């Protein structure tokens, strides 16, 4: 893995994330979010988990970001109004970042180089999915069903009497 790629992708991702957090207009934030997701997908590729990276692009960029845009559309009235930035939240976030970084750097066992690994094939992922992780798979299926139904119920028009 090259350092350059790593640095570039990190900068992209973090910049996109910052933009998504701080831009005043919502639609701009949503589009920055897409950029962030793409950066994360690039990370996955970089780390050798190509399948996850692709799934990330499909699901996150294809579905979630689009969902967010749709919702912005549906809640338009206040979407155009810019709102204030709350600095208290920034303080908490910075504190948490400082703590996390301190914890990470303190743990010396994490300073290891990347070992050489064989490529992770989709076949292998499929195998693991159907054997070791079959029950989580079923649960996720149930969960997705429930989420679907729940979302539908939440947005259903109330019955007119």
């Amino acid at each position: 893995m090259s350092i350059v790629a790593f640095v570039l992708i990190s900068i992209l991702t973090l910049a996109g994330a910052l933009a998504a957090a701080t831009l005043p207009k919502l639609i701009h934030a949503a589009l920055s979010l897409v950029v962030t997701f793409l950066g994360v997908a690039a990370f996955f590729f970089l780390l050798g988990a190509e399948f996850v990276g692709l799934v990330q692009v499909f699901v996150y960029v294809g579905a979630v970001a689009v969902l967010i845009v749709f919702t912005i559309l549906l809640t338009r009235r206040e979407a155009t109004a810019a709102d204030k930035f709350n600095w208290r939240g920034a303080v908490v976030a910075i504190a948490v970042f400082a703590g996390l970084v301190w914890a990470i750097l303190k743990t010396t066992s994490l300073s290891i180089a990347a070992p050489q690994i064989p490529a992770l094939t989709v076949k292998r992922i499929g195998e693991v999915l159907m054997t070791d992780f079959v029950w989580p798979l079923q649960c996720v299926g149930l969960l997705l069903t429930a989420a679907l139904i729940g979302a539908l119920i939440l947005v259903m028009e109330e019955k007119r009497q």
Partner: protein
Amino acid sequence: MTLSILLVVSAALFCIGLLAALSRRHAIYILIGIELMLAAANLNFVAFWRFSSQPQQPTGVMVAIFSIAIAAAEAAVGLALVIAIYRHYRTTNVDKLNQLKG
């Protein structure tokens, strides 16, 4: 490239997500923040798998995959919630959604 650096990056991503969730008043910003945090967590999982001593066990990857699926479901429901709230209260300002107080 060491694992620590990767973890720092994902920590930064996490905190930016936290920032987004805590500092904006619009409900959708909170959802954006949550997505960012989830993405950071996924990144962590995959990083740990990559640097692990047993790469033939793709545990980190599987978790990341499941996490993505769940994130999607959660985003759907969350956004449905926002729409429902908007329809009822005619606002997406979370400061105004304060009826759950003690």
